[in-house]
């Protein structure tokens, strides 16, 4: 082994070839040095690892004496976190080792391989290096964009939390000061009446009004505001925490961009056509639920989306919000039950498979609640669960939406359920 990297190529290379015998790799080196400006050949020695860490090359070609040596050295670099940046790895081998190199790529260890002894496909080597450069640069650009996006979201949330805290404090102060004002004015009124007005309500009456009506009312109001604001702040904080904890796109101990997998025989799968068996399920019913019962007058209908997958929940939410429906969300059946106990909903969109409490059992429980007996429930389901949905229908399903469905389909089902109610209310 020699002590210094070979003085071949660029000083700040983006493409490097690591060799332990430069005579064997002269052909490949010459091709690269004559076509790629940012190239350098590196002799493997004690300083190589530090050098790689310093220059962070985009494409690294391993051309050590045997495939085993290259694998061992690359594994060592990855295990010791010396190659944490995005890069494209290529193993160079002689013809008799090509099967081994190929298997290394198929297992996802290297991104590509090239036979340099004998050197038949010079242009393919250049093509491999060029692809590696392009892919890695695109991936790096996307990663940077994501990082900026996350930072911005985090800042926005921090600002929102801060504003929420201030708002809470202001409201609490205002409630407190109003309360004190009322108490003071009550006391003054009592005093003045004690002094000179004999035919006005007695102190006893005023104090009983204060105790029976004003104080509980103010306490209740204060509690409501506190609870509401605490809930809002908790939600914002949890969102911020979730975003902070969300792993960035940057892969840890990145070993390359492309993972090759062993080819396997794919098993035949049944076709997944949305709505294929629609006729087997009960059709969407237009009959509104117990319209004769007294409902509190409401503005826009409120819809509860119960779905454990936050991405799909958000998507459905965005579709409905754009149509001026008020939406609320629950991540499982238990959470939905809690919300339904506290608030009136005009419609529930419910997923089937969820942690804690699934859609079928959640619907059973909702029907046992006094306020949940008549809320229309629409199932969100895939077409593989027809039998369960049929069973579910016994608990009062008003319809179903096939995942992922389209905006038109979702709105059609929702409107069919909500329109009769709206019409009746209008009458």
């Amino acid at each position: 082994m020699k002590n210094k990297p070979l003085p071949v190529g660029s000083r700040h290379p983006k493409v490097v070839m690591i060799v332990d015998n430069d005579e064997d790799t002269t052909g490949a080196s010459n091709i690269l040095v004559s076509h790629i400006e940012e190239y350098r050949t590196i002799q493997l020695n004690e300083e190589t690892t530090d050098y790689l860490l310093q220059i962070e090359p985009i494409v690294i070609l391993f051309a050590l004496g045997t495939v085993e040596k290259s694998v061992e050295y690359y594994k060592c670099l990855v295990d010791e976190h010396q190659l944490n940046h995005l890069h494209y790895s290529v193993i160079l081998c002689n013809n008799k080792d090509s099967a081994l190199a190929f298997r290394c790529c198929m297992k996802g260890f290297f991104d590509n391989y090239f036979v340099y002894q004998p050197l038949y496909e010079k242009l393919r080597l250049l093509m491999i290096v060029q692809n590696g450069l392009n892919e890695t640069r695109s991936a790096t650009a996307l990663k940077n964009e994501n990082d900026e996006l996350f930072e911005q979201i985090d800042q926005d949330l921090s600002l929102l939390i801060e504003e929420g805290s201030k708002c809470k404090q202001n409201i609490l102060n205002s409630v407190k000061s109003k309360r004190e004002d009322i108490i003071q004015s009550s006391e003054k009124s009592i005093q003045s009446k004690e002094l000179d007005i004999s035919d006005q309500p007695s102190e006893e009456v005023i104090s009983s009004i204060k105790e029976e009506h004003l104080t509980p009312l103010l306490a209740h109001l204060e509690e409501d505001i506190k609870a509401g604001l605490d809930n809002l702040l908790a939600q914002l904080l949890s969102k911020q925490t979730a975003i902070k904890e969300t792993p960035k796109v940057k892969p840890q101990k990145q070993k390359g961009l492309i993972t090759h997998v062993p080819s396997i025989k794919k098993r035949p799968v049944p076709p997944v056509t949305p709505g294929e068996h629609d006729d087997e399920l009960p059709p969407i019913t237009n009959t509104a639920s117990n319209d004769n019962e007294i409902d509190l007058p409401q503005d826009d209908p409120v819809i509860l989306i119960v779905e454990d997958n936050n991405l799909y929940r958000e998507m459905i939410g965005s579709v409905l919000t754009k149509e001026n429906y008020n939406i609320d969300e629950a991540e499982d059946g238990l959470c939905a039950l809690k919300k339904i106990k506290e608030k009136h909903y005009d419609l529930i969109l419910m997923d089937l498979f969820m942690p804690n409490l699934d859609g079928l059992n959640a619907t059973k429980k909702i029907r046992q609640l006094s306020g949940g007996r008549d809320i229309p429930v629409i199932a969100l389901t895939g077409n593989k669960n027809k039998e369960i949905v049929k069973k579910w229908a016994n608990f009062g399903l008003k319809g179903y939406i096939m995942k992922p469905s389209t905006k038109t389909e979702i709105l059609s089902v929702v409107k069919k359920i909500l329109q009769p109610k709206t019409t009746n209310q209008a009458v």
Partner: protein
Amino acid sequence: MTNNLQILNRNVMFELIGDDKALIKKFEIEFLQQAKKSIGKLSASYTDSDFTQIKEEAHFLKTSAKAIGAEISADYLQQLEDSSLNKDKEHCKELIILINNSVKQVYGAIKDEK
């Protein structure tokens, strides 16, 4: 059937949320983040031979994959749900690798979209 499926069928999201490019991008990025987490969980569950957890995680990610139009990923995830029900560990392993690969292809498709 798998041959007719697309890596990323953009019509699916277009028909669900319209042509709001920023919103589409947001959901695409969310899917990639979700997929990375889920594949980690799938691998861990595979190591523990926890087929129930594999099924639940595959179902979870399948919902997102279908929603953004990652049809091939969704198809493999459905196969993984079936294989985990049959406790076919070897096939589960193959499918987890294929899912990982298909998600990388989705990433490539999103990247190329720019």
